[in-house]
């Protein structure tokens, strides 16, 4: 579904060039859930922005669904660290933003938006404004906005990192449930080993400066997963070792 070949990204900053990614190779299959983990500044967000077509690679080739990425695609959704809701729009109309921008049928979009909001437990909050919701609820709205695109690919950049630990666990369980019901191809950036282990089929560990693929770890434990299982703990320990290697 997604393929990166020898992808390099160099930013020409004011204080000299920043090598963000160097020679990254990555294949993500259809409906596969890949987590990307690594130190702050190792190029995780850059990687997602490249796949999303928000940035162009300095070198290398990126394809999604077999086509080279030249600009953002409608079947690729992007979810940010913060909810990024428009403060003047109600919950429902925030979810409908992609429908409006794409010029799709609003009536049908509205029905689907309600279904999605129900799916994440936000039924009854359709007419609220974002500031009336908790951080966790806002991020759920943002998830619905991603889902209404019916994306083939979901790119998620630390979507839960601004939330408290409990809400975080809750949301990653919810995402797991959504993924089991409506499987998508997902690339999920996170700082949290636990989150990666619970959610991902494969975990990519990046090494910093410039960002390279250090190791890829498969997680084969059956779903639904919850933390505290012995096999997941083993993977977590392995990852911790790998991460300490790339920081050293």
């Amino acid at each position, binding site marked *: 579904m997604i393929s990166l070949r020898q992808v390099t990204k160099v930013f020409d900053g004011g204080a000299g060039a920043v090598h963000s990614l160097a020679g990254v190779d990555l294949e993500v299959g259809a409906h596969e859930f890949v987590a990307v983990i690594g130190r702050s500044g190792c190029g995780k967000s850059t990687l997602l922005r490249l796949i*999303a077509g*928000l940035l162009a690679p300095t070198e290398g080739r990126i394809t999604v669904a077999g086509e080279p990425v030249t*600009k*953002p*695609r*409608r079947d*690729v*959704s*992007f979810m*940010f*660290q*913060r909810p*990024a809701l*428009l*403060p*003047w729009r109600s919950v429902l109309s925030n979810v409908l*933003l*992609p429908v*409006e*921008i*794409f010029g799709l049928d609003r009536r049908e979009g509205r029905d689907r938006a309600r279904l999605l909001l129900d799916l994440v437990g936000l039924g009854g909050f359709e007419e609220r*404004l*974002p*500031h*009336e919701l908790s951080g966790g609820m806002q991020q759920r709205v943002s998830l619905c906005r991603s889902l209404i*695109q019916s994306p083939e690919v979901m790119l998620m950049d630390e979507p839960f990192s601004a939330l408290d630990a409990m809400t975080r666990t809750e949301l990653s369980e919810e995402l797991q449930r959504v993924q089991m019901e409506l499987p998508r191809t997902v690339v999920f950036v996170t700082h949290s080993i636990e989150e990666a282990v619970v959610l991902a089929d494969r975990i990519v560990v990046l090494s910093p400066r410039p960002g390279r693929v250090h190791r890829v770890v498969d997680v084969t434990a059956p779903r639904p997963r919850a933390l505290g299982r012995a096999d997941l703990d083993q993977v977590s320990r392995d990852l911790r070792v790998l991460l300490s290697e790339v920081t050293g």
Partner: protein
Amino acid sequence: MTVVLPVVGLLAIIGLWWLATIVFGIESFLVPSPVDVVSSFVELPGYLLEQSLVTLWETVLGFLLSIVVGVPLALMIVGSKVLERMFYPLLVALNAVPKVAIAPVFVVWFGFGIESKVLLIVLVCVFPVVISTASGMKSTPHELVELLRSLDATRRQEFFKLRFLYALPQVFVGLKVAISLAVIGAVIAEFIGARAGLGYVISQSGASADTSLAFAAMSLLAVMSIMLFYGLAYIERRALPWAEEHRGMT
């Protein structure tokens, strides 16, 4: 409660003023007592209201015109680095010119009628409108811009669905400054050369040492300023119910 406290404050000040004029035995042509002021209003209610309406009309017209001129100007400046470099310093310089100095020139150019008043008001108001609109247009959070980019939105959509709406609370900050300045601008213009308006009343009463009348006119100006300001604040609250809470959040 929101109404009671300001009213109590106002009454206290008026009470003190009254007391002072009595205790110190101040002559009413120097500082008239509240009673003198009220009675000079009661003597000429029709005349004073008529003059108030003249000033109000000039103020509103000048204010609206400064929005019509200022907002597009701000959008141009924000939209183009070249235009910003070309016109921004000019705008700053224009704003630095003392408006009192320009007012007589405007009278020479545009006469004693309403035109010279409205244009001076525009000159006074346009700067805060431009600055606040421009800074509002630049305040769009990066992540929201990136969200629209990730949806492959057109520039037009990015403008109308995001940047412009996001700028509105900032625009209102400028408008609230502008509306107060507009009243001042109207009075300055009427001082310099006019045949009507509260500023004209004040300058005439000064010439005839009718201080009570001047105070009555000033009180009406104050009432007008307050009404315009809170009227605008009311419109803002109705139009942008999200703004206050949102600002509190970020």
